[in-house]
Each structure stands twice: as structure tokens, then as C-alpha cells.
């Protein structure tokens, strides 16, 4: 698992991907996104290279583009997808503890988060925290709603809906 973070600028993905490909690596599942002016890459790669060897391979491009590089051995592989069956949308006035409160309530039901994205909307005076979670649960929608019901009193709106994946 390769992690790269640096100030956003055009061409980061192209340079990193080209370096890896020319270095004999195969690129797999990836999450790449701009967060608060930084560009972040989390990328599964496979190949013959060791972790330190990968860091050496990427060192020139990382130095040039001011990227921090981190390599972890990971046992992942392709075709290990889980399909989410629950979507959770959270909106609340931005303040400390929203993520902790919501995810703790969900975790106590055994909810498995597959994907979480969050953003701060509104303006500087009245920031609004928006979070969107997709995950797997064996609980009913009603019991999940009960689990987060207490958060409404704290000004956090939590909407839980089933995700019905259509195969056609």
C-alpha cells in the first residue's frame, strides 16, 4: 500500500503512475483525492520490488513534486469487494466530535464502514459538517436509526437509508 501526500498541482498522478509503470509495478485499486489543498494518493501496487526499493524508485519524483511517500506491505488483492447495503448521511453545525459520535453509535451495532467522505460547507461564521458513509450492516434500518436517534438532540441530523444494488 503506497501513500503519497503533497501540495496539489497538475501532473502528480501522471508522474507517479509513469514512474511506477516504468519501474515494473502493477497499479491496482486506488483512492486519489484533493483534501484541503493537498493531493492524496492511496494506491495498491504489486510487483517484485521491496518497500525500501519502492521508496528509492519514487524518491526523485517525490523530491521534485514535494510529495511525502509511505509504503506499507499489504496482503490485499483484487476481487475482494464488499457491496454496501446501508448509506448514512450526516449533517450538523461543524463542531468537535461529530465523526466520533456518529461512528461510535454505528460501530456499537457492528456496522462496517466501507467508505467515508466528509466536507465542511457553509461559510466561516457558520460552517456545516457533511459526512456521507456507505457500509455493511446485518441490522435492520430501523435498529440503526434507533442507534443514532440520540444524536438528534445534539443537533446532528443522521439519515439512514438502505442501498439496494441493482444487478441487470
Amino acid at each position, binding site marked *: 500500500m503506497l501513500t503519497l501526500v503533497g501540495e496539489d498541482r497538475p501532473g502528480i498522478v501522471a508522474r507517479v503512475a509513469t514512474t511506477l509503470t516504468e519501474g515494473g509495478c502493477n497499479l491496482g485499486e486506488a483512492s486519489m483525492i484533493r483534501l484541503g489543498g493537498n493531493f492524496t494518493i492511496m494506491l495498491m501496487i504489486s510487483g517484485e520490488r521491496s518497500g525500501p526499493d519502492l521508496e528509492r524508485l519514487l524518491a526523485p519524483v517525490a523530491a521534485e513534486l514535494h510529495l511525502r511517500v509511505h509504503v506499507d506491505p499489504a496482503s490485499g488483492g483484487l476481487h475482494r469487494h464488499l457491496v454496501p447495503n446501508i448509506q448514512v448521511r450526516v449533517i450538523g453545525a461543524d463542531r468537535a466530535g461529530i465523526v466520533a459520535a456518529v461512528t461510535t453509535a454505528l460501530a456499537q451495532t457492528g456496522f462496517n464502514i466501507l467508505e467515508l467522505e466528509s466536507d465542511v460547507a457553509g461559510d466561516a461564521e457558520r460552517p456545516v459538517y457533511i459526512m456521507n458513509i456507505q457500509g455493511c450492516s446485518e441490522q435492520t434500518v430501523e435498529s440503526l436509526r434507533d442507534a443514532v436517534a440520540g444524536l438528534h438532540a445534539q443537533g446532528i441530523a443522521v439519515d439512514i437509508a438502505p*442501498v439496494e444494488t441493482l444487478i441487470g
Partner: protein
Amino acid sequence: MGIREILRVPDERLKQVSTPVARFDAVLQLAITELEETRLAGPAAVGIAAPQVGWFERVVIVDVSTKKGVYNHGHLILVNPEIEHWEGYEIGREGCLSVPDYTGNVIRATRIRLTAQDPRGKPLAFEMDGYEARAVQHEIDHLDGLLFIDRVVSRRTDLFRRKVYAAQGAGSGAGGMQPGARQGP
């Protein structure tokens, strides 16, 4: 009779536009039977389109009656289906027999009006919404050489529950989001 092979991406034939059915004969009945057998043989698919088995005529099968709590018209064999009206839009997660091990969020019209013919050529008309309307739009896309992966939207765009603007459906609304679709309003 028999189960047919399902074409998978990146098979170029999946991009082919299928032709209307002209002859409602025994050959058509047999092909429909095989299409249905193929649908039932795979993972729990609520629909299948003829091009997915390499048959490039405008035939789809949709049956969402197995899904609990979903309003539906039962088991449908739709020959030469045409969507005549789109209304509203919403995001839902889709997968496809032709795209194994991948699902993604796709925008579809919430409600549609549809005409088609049955396997003997008799005209049919339906009003559908929700999950069934989504399944029909997914299958008709196949007839126009489109897969759901041609329509997947960024997951981060789905931050808000989409509002439904009824007025948009009458004109360019959801229909306007059907690039390449044959049945424009």
C-alpha cells in the same frame, strides 16, 4: 434451449446498437426462452438485455418482483421498448452481469412512461417508478450500446439527497441526462 454465454467488458459488441424486432415468430420465442434461462442461471439479476448474450435485437427481460417492498409489474418481456417520458432523477447503486465484481452509483429517472410489445407483437404500455424504472432504464441502455459504467457518477457528488423537480421531466429533465440514448424526448 440452453444457457448462453454472457458478453463481458471490454467486449466491443456490447457497444453495438441493437435493431428493432420485426418478426414475432418461433425463432423469437426460443431466443427469449434462452435469454431468460441465462438470466436465471447467473447471480440474482433483476434483468437482462438481448445484446448481453450476443443477440442484437431490441428485447429485454425485467423482473423486480423478487425484491421485497418494491412496487412492480411482475415478470416483463419487453420487445422494442421505448421510453417516452422521464421524470425526476435519483442516484442508485448498480451492477451488471456484463461487468462482474464492480458496482457504482448511477443517475436514473425516478419515473418513466414506457411503450413496448409483448413476444407476440401486442402493444404494451407502462408507468413505472423507483427500482423497476431503474432496472428498465439499465436494460434499455444495453440496446443502445451503453453500460452503467458509462454513466457512473463520482461518489463524492452524492452528498445530498437529490430533489425531484417534476417540471424537468416533461422536457429536457432526466431525458437530457441520457447522452447517446436513442429514445430522446
